[in-house]
């Protein structure tokens, strides 16, 4: 279950589970946000014996966590090796299917793409993650839907993908099986602090006493943390995807390229996204709608170019999700100084794939105050200390027409 192209893991996930068991016994943790980040954190904490309550404004995984591409190959992240160690075991550990699949192919249909993919391949090989370069013919042999326009590609001997919706529900159910509580349709409205700690979380469904809080509320983190006097710079945008009817199964479903991310699902559907995003205003109640746009047509074109032999397949749906970004686009995973029992996690565009590891990191911060398996100092909130109020404008990240965007 390990990867050809990754360093040998330091220990098995089962050993880790045994080590953490009971380390947070009787600790009451309230998690704000039932997306994949909050649920994974909740699951790791429950595995450590904590009494976990997850509060969500709606249904678990309703936002980005249930609307993403399912990709799990974020080699740039310090959490990557941990993610790779965990994913192949997640079905067994959670007790529910996630549809996790290993390895990925990225294929080029233009010389510029091929150039970039070769750069990325080298970057990975330098890090010790094995990537094999492929010729056009090699790609065509491995990707039955590829066409004559394919110039070559790369084969990640690591990484993979899973089904976001199934995985989110798997975390949620596994957390319940460990005695954790999930309270849906229950937006968090505020916090009660005492002596530099949050002692209770207020939600529409009631007041929840706690020893520690994890704020994993996606774009809504900013306003929630502002209530605690902590500034978290975030800008949210809409990202879109399309999906086709099932195609014949390819040996490796994780194929993308041509400016797209996505995968072939285990049912055979081709689910792909990419292209321009639209910056939006964040509302505390959540977005009133997540419409897709005629970008659907540009996505269809790119999928047809990526897989000429699938160009006749019907597109059956499109959708959009909201992703929040920090000023440098990297995650924040950090425990606050004041109130000192609050941990924040925002993952931008890589939260799904890294979730088995991000939950572990949050568990470590909540229980031990520091991450046990990797350095995450560069993901701390303090890197944005003193960032100007106009950071969005500087980047051109403000909504075009805030009045109707709401």
């Amino acid at each position: 279950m390990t990867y050809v192209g990754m360093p040998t893991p330091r220990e098995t996930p089962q050993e880790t589970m045994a080590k953490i068991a009971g380390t947070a016994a009787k600790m009451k943790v309230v998690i704000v946000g039932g997306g994949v980040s909050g649920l994974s954190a909740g699951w790791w904490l429950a595995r450590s014996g904590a009494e976990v309550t997850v509060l969500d404004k709606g249904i678990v995984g309703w936002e980005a966590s249930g609307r993403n591409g399912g990709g799990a190959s974020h080699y740039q992240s310090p959490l990557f090796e941990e993610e790779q160690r965990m994913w192949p075991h997640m079905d067994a550990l959670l007790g529910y299917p996630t549809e996790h699949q290993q390895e990925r192919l990225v294929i080029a249909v233009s010389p510029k793409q091929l150039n970039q993919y070769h750069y990325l391949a080298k970057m990975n090989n330098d890090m010790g993650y094995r990537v094999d370069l492929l010729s056009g013919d090699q790609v065509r042999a491995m990707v039955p839907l590829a066409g004559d326009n394919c110039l070559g590609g790369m084969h990640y001997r690591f990484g993979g993908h899973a089904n976001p919706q199934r995985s989110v529900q798997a975390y949620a159910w596994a957390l319940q099986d460990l005695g954790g509580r999930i309270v849906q349709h229950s937006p968090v409205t505020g916090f009660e602090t005492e002596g530099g700690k949050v002692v209770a979380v207020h939600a529409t469904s009631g007041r929840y006493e706690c020893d520690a809080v994890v704020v994993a509320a996606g774009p809504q983190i900013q306003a929630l943390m502002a209530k605690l006097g902590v500034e978290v710079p975030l800008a949210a945008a809409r990202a879109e995807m399309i999906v086709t009817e099932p195609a014949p199964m390819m040996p490796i479903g994780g194929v993308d390229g041509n400016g797209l991310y996505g995968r072939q699902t285990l049912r055979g559907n081709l689910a792909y996204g990419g292209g321009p995003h639209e910056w939006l205003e964040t509302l505390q109640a959540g977005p009133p709608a997540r419409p897709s746009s005629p970008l659907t047509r540009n996505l269809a074109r790119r999928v047809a170019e990526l897989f000429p032999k699938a160009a006749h397949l019907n597109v059956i749906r499109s959708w959009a999700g909201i992703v929040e970004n920090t000023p440098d686009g990297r995650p924040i995973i950090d425990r606050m100084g004041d109130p000192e029992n609050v941990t924040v996690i925002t993952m931008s565009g890589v939260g799904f794939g890294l979730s088995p590891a991000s939950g572990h990191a949050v568990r470590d911060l909540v229980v031990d105050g520091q991450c046990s398996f990797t350095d995450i100092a560069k993901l701390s909130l303090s890197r944005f200390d003193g960032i100007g109020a106009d950071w969005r404008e500087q980047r051109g990240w403000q909504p075009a027409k805030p009045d109707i965007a709401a």
Partner: protein
Amino acid sequence: MHANNGTDPHAIGTKLPAPEARYDMVVVGAGPAGLAAAIAGAGEGKSVLLIDENPVPGAAMGNDVPLLFGGRMTTGTQNAERMLETVFMSEPQLEAAMEAGVEVLLGTSAWGVYRNGPGITGLPENVVALADKDRGWIVGYGELVLATGARDLAIGFPGWNQPGVMGAAALERLLAHYEAFAGKRVLIVGSHDLALNTALLAREKGVDVAGLVEVRSAPQGDAALAEAVRAAQIPFYLDDAPAEAIGGIDGVERVRLRSGAVIDVDTVVLAIGLVPSIELIDAMGGKRVLDGARGGYIPGDNAGVTCVGDCAGLADTGFDHVEYRMEWAGELGKLSAPDTIVCQCEEVTRADLLGVQPPRYLERPAPMAARSLDTLIQDGPPNPDQIKRLTRAGMGVCQGRRCRDQVAMMLAMAANGPFGSVPLATHRAPVRPLPLRILADWEESEEMRAGWDVWFGIPTQWVPYRDIDTPREREHQTAIAEGWSL
């Protein structure tokens, strides 16, 4: 100052294209209501585009799009030319519309309406997206008139997932517009006006009608219509329901009723009800309201969009369609087995749906097997979109047309609530299944191509962690950013 100088080249900006053409009025659906609206619009001097998806391509009909054809169309439907002619001939008002100056496009579907509003502001203007058998495109509108009619309501029972189980609207389309019904002898399910009219139409078109099955103890529809059916010697099977459709390689051969009667027919016509076609309204985020007397969910008040004909709601005769179909769903549910299929595209059985189980190609470890709709309902009211994601019911190529209503009814019953207590599974563009190559924008602007990135185009996002804050960081950023606009 940040590198981007206050602009984001990878944001949507002005990249979405302007419409190819613009009309004062676009009318979707060339039935009587749409035709009347188009002709009236042209009479007021407006530029009017009237489109209708009929004749739909043979492949789509095979997937029961947009109506439940149940595989009972003749091979004549594969001949696009002939079909076009037949549709044109069957509707004399089409010629009148053209004479009035209306631009008419047949074989053209509207698969999306896009408007600036909550969650989207990047459109140059509000547009309706179209496709025919060759290509997709978008047009602008001053006024949008939706006259999309109503579609078949399907409720499953043992054996319904085979050729020969079809809907009343599909039968009407095949008989009255396409002259392409392949069946000979039909059994009609239901006895309200729709079923009665279907029986009379079938008889008029020379189809043998074996009878009408009614779950209640008396015919439901208009008394005069029921009398006309009786006068035509068509029997009613009252207090009864189809228990099983039995068939062979070509589909249905006979039907066994709950009462034990066995009726030889090649086609079962589901005529329990019609559902106003609100796909476009719902997919554009428009308002909709539940009105049992008008056939279920109907469009609410949506600025700039007018709904006419059946898509605005069925004629209110004081009959509660929703209550009636819930009664049918309850009865057919009782007659079904755990392995009766609910979603045909994804082969989801009743037991799997109520058990919230994943598809068969996935394993069901003990904790998974122990989950069910009942355990899910403990976390909150059932939501069809959530159930869909877990079981795949409604995720198939028919876009949920065959099972969406039935699933909603089953969820409401499982939660012991009224039909309206369960939200409607959302419709998404494209509201018709459309091939990638047709949907594709092959004329994409240079701006779109140049600004394209696989994700957000934030260079710092992809720098390996160990290289952050080192001289290599800039090197990566430059190299990665150069690849953008692929």
